[in-house]
């Protein structure tokens, strides 16, 4: 039996943390993440969650604390956003290359200046090379589901890597949506207590983690994590499929395919705005355009095979980016092109930075322009990304 409730995204994540029976939580407040750990603090205080809650003075220490907890064998969770995530950067690498299966919620928020608490994906995508598995939800239900799945994926002995679960600031974090929660007993059976892997530190059995060694040791550790990430692609699909047994729902693994079967025009994006893109796809489909959406759920490991498959039947692809690498182009655009390179022309549109809203009818306009440009042969101009800034009036 599932339970139907209405929760905001942050409370949905906290609920998943509770149902996962997390043992150690350490976090430092930052908008828009704060209410995740506030709610967890309430759960611990009320005795609903039997966890150690560690107050710390910074995000660097928050991740260091849960890293230590994970090395001690505990199931550990933290959450952050934006500047907080950047402050963790050094510890991200230590956690990932110690194979500490931590789960962290990242409520995506742009990075200053100017001060701005709204969503884009610069924070979570700027840490994509740190060795973490990185996922992103489309809606509140998925934020809950991904958080539970993250523990299973990260703790799987074929993977053993930390996992980030992203959800867009305010659009999901502070927006109430109906969702279904699985039974606690089903979750307990599906997500048993952590095994003592990859190793557990115990008093009286001293060893040093990450001590200095020959340079080859570094490359060997990178190779271990590389291989774990490659295996994670299969494990993520498997976990997503098995999740159906307790929740009645799965998403398709590393990506979700929306009306892609016969699509000649493929839009690629991730995050909450994909909900609006699906509406735009429906509208254009009703007008006869063969368009579909490939929604990325995991940026790491990257869905290489899925993108090649989607490109093989397509005429053109459009990558919608909410994060841009200055002097280059949208971050997903670079990644998609590096994978599908040469198979199809790829257009990149950068939009929605700093939380700028893009509505479904604007996506209709953006998608239609993309199709028109392809059909009129203007795709030779696609080498440069296009910035969508409608308030400026007219396009240049």
């Amino acid at each position, binding site marked *: 039996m599932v339970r139907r409730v209405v929760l905001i995204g942050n409370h949905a994540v906290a609920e998943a943390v509770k149902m996962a029976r997390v043992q150690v939580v350490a976090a430092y407040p930052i908008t828009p993440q704060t209410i995740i750990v506030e709610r967890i603090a309430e759960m611990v205080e009320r005795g609903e969650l039997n966890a150690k809650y560690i107050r710390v003075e910074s995000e660097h220490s928050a991740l260091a604390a849960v890293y230590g907890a994970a090395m001690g064998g505990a199931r550990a969770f933290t959450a952050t956003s934006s500047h907080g995530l950047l402050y963790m950067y050094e510890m991200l690498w230590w956690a990932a290359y110690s194979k500490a299966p931590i789960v962290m919620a990242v409520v995506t928020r742009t990075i200053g200046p100017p001060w701005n608490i709204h969503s884009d994906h610069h924070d979570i995508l700027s840490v994509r090379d740190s060795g973490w598995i990185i996922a992103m939800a489309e809606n509140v239900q998925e934020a809950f589901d991904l958080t539970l799945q993250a523990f299973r994926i990260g703790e799987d002995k074929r993977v*053993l890597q930390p996992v980030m679960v992203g959800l867009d600031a305010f659009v999901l974090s502070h927006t109430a949506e109906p969702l279904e929660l699985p039974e606690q007993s089903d979750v307990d059976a599906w997500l048993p207590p952590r095994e003592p892997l990859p*190793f557990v530190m115990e008093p009286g059995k001293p060893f*040093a983690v990450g001590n200095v060694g020959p340079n080859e040791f570094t490359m060997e550790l990178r190779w271990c994590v590389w291989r774990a990430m490659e295996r994670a692609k299969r494990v993520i699909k498997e976990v997503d499929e098995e999740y159906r047994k307790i929740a009645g729902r799965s998403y398709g693994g590393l990506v979700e395919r929306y009306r892609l079967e016969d699509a000649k025009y493929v839009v690629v994006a991730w995050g909450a705005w994909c909900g609006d893109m699906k509406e735009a796809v429906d509208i254009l489909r009703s007008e006869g355009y063969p368009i579909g959406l490939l929604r990325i759920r995991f940026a790491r490991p990257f869905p290489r095979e899925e993108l090649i498959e989607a490109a093989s039947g397509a005429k053109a692809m459009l990558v919608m980016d909410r994060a841009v690498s200055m002097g280059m182009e949208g971050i997903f655009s670079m990644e998609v092109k590096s994978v599908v390179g040469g198979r199809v022309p790829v257009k990149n549109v950068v939009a929605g930075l700093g939380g700028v809203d893009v509505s479904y009818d604007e996506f209709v306009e953006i998608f239609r322009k993309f199709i028109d440009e392809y059909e009129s042969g203007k795709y030779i101009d696609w080498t440069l990304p296009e910035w969508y800034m409608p308030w400026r009036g007219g396009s240049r």
Partner: protein
Amino acid sequence: MNGKFWKYVPQNLELEAEEDLRNFLRYLLAHPTPGSAGATGTWRTLKPVIHVDKCVKCGMCWLYCPENVITWRPGEYPSIDYTYCKGCGVCSSVCPRGAIEMVVEGE
């Protein structure tokens, strides 16, 4: 597989994960063993010498030795393992009785 150039396509996930875990533990963790960096006593230019006539068996040298090469139990005189002592002189500095003299090696 053996060679200089490596690519990875997962096949047997369990087996390969076990192999990786063994490598990972080897490359990430260092278990304390005496002299894992070799006979570091050869690095020494100054040698700490304990003058037992001044020693009050307080154990400060044992407590402070950064290399864990001093053996001591309450009520006993400390002794230094010169195979691994690097001659840093911390013991000599912290000794409250001036009982540890740093002597130039080879003299």
